[in-house]
């Protein structure tokens, strides 16, 4: 019997018993739903983490010379924390030293960070990320200026008390009014607003537009760090190979400057997007490892359900099988009929599962900050697993059916 006959037969008997078929599909459906949804979400996270998280927080072709990592996506041992804290801080002199000696063409900017309260005419925004930076910071961060301008190197030189605001912060403080030229209090110190950065959007639902940037020499610096100390020296090159070269240079220079012997660990940290993602990669690897287990459990359950349904179907249709055999169906024909029916049942379940998985992924993307991106391969895997589970589940019932004695089978009603 040709395959399409068997599939047609299977679809007809699924149609004939819609409700029963639906229940028998639920197991496979859940398994595949799971597969599609989890893969989509992990995949979405991957894209998101690489593009936005690393891009927004670390920067493209950028690395940061730091005392210790800024972005950590995994657990950190107490011992590690203590070791990080014992390290010497990065200073203005380190930055100057590197700026003079690094040969790879690069943009560089010192940075300090703190959370400060910003006020304007009785309005207040607490816990605002204030960065003290060099003028190149805006280019490194790829910030477009929506209004006004960024500060110039001259303003950094003289320690001008000027500030550039993030989009959301400007909106919150000024509520539609023109912020340019207004004096605001940054941690209690007066600064003149000279620019607003274009909207950056959100990361995991957290606004990337609640920040203020001031020259690293502005009066605020005293609130942020002790004299001469900086949190971060950022270096951005034109491409990844140059970045690697610059990192090698910086490592050598810093080791020499700090008098580290060969074999001694670096007592500074070079943070890259890749490094920041290491923790996430660990999480996604675990998710991808756990996924087959989760999917397998529901598919095994689904397979068992289908097997039972098929056994029931064989015993309900004993007389039909007898007639078919009397009319010339070979064992293999009966076998094929039930295996294909089982596989078809399971594939229909898998298709429902794919639909439900996609809806779930879309719902997650729409209603939570988690992103989702459908991986086409997961749909293929879903259908493939559906066929496999159905066939395996169908073998036993189909064998039973194929071995029925036609005379005895036909006698049964």
């Amino acid at each position, binding site marked *: 019997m040709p395959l399409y006959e068997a599939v047609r037969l299977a679809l007809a008997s699924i149609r004939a018993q819609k409700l029963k078929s639906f229940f028998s599909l639920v197991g496979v459906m859940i398994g595949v739903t799971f597969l599609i949804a989890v893969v989509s979400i992990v995949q979405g996270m991957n894209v998101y983490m690489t593009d936005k998280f690393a891009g927004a927080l670390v920067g493209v072709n950028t690395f940061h010379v730091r005392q210790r990592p800024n972005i950590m996506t995994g657990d950190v041992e107490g011992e590690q924390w203590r070791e990080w804290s014992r390290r010497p801080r990065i200073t203005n002199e380190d930055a100057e030293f590197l700026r003079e000696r690094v040969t790879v063409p690069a943009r560089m900017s010192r940075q300090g960070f703190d959370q400060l309260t910003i006020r304007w005419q009785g309005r207040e925004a607490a816990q605002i990320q204030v960065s003290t930076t060099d003028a190149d910071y805006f280019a490194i961060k790829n910030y477009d200026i929506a209004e006004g301008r960024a500060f110039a190197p001259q303003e950094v030189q003289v320690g001008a008390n000027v500030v550039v605001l993030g989009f959301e912060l400007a909106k919150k403080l000024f509520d539609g009014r023109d912020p340019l030229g207004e004096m605001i209090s940054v941690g209690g110190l007066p600064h003149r607003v000279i620019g607003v950065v274009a909207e950056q959007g959100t990361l995991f639902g957290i606004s990337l537009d609640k920040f203020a940037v001031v020259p690293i020499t502005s009066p605020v610096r005293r609130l942020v760090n002790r004299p001469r100390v900086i949190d971060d020296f950022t270096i951005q090159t034109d491409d990844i190979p140059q970045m690697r070269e610059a990192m090698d240079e910086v490592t050598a220079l810093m080791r020499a400057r700090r008098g580290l012997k060969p074999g001694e660990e670096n007592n500074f940290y070079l943070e890259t997007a890749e490094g920041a993602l290491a923790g996430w990669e660990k999480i996604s690897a675990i998710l991808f490892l756990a996924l087959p287990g989760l999917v397998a459990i529901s598919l095994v359950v689904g397979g068992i359900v289908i097997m039972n349904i098929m056994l029931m179907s064989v015993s309900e249709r004993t007389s039909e099988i007898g007639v078919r055999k009397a009319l010339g*169906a070979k064992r293999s024909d009966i076998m094929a009929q039930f295996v294909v029916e089982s596989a078809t049942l399971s594939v229909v379940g898998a298709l429902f599962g794919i639909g439900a998985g996609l809806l779930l992924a879309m719902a997650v993307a729409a209603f939570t900050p988690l992103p989702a991106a459908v991986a086409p391969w997961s749909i293929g895997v879903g259908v493939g697993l559906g066929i496999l589970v159905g066939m395996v589940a169908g073998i036993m019932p189909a064998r039973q059916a194929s071995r029925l004695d036609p*005379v005895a089978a036909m006698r049964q009603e």
Partner: protein
Amino acid sequence: MSASVIRLEGITREYQMGGERIRALAGIDLEIDRNEYVAIMGPSGSGKSTMMNTLGCLDTPTSGRYWLNGHEVSRMVDDDLARVRNREIGFVFQTFNLLPRASALANVELPLVYAGTSTRERRRRAEEALTRVGLGARMHHRPNELSGGQRQRVAIARALVNRPSILLADEPTGNLDSATSVEIMRVFGELQAEGQTVILVTHEPDIAEHAHRVVVLRDGRIETDRAVARPTLAAAVA
């Protein structure tokens, strides 16, 4: 190789039933020629059903030899028997045994599906067979939308569609009223007149009277094997 469609030599069939050995057929010798119209009769327990199953290649004899259309089928295994049933035998059962969810047409096409006939050829031959039994207008009805007589006609069409060597009918009128029985028996008569070999298995003497030869079984043996004094077909119908 003989001219007979069916040749049985010393056929026995024994069953094991609760430690007891039951001899359903105890040595049958029988020849049936092409285009014969034979009724196999006998009381219950005479071995009639076993005989029918053996002739229909649904069951293999314990000993003895069976040639169907020149091929020895008594030594064949499962799948070969399935092929023989498909090509050589057309079954008509007492309970019709149609697939309830399939249309008359699909039911009639079934043997051709297993014969591997192409879709178009299948459709053509099934329509032809249904038309032949007078159901040309009911091809797309399901069995539950048809009367008993019509169902049995569908079953006959299904039995004929593969152009079998023998038409094997097991109590074909057992579930039908007498008027419908007459109709169905007329169809068998016509088919036989067209050259079909017909074997009826029945316990009803008046049904057996339609045949040209009556074989009576008792205790697994042939008790009598006689030609029927031929009443004309017209007389039987009237």
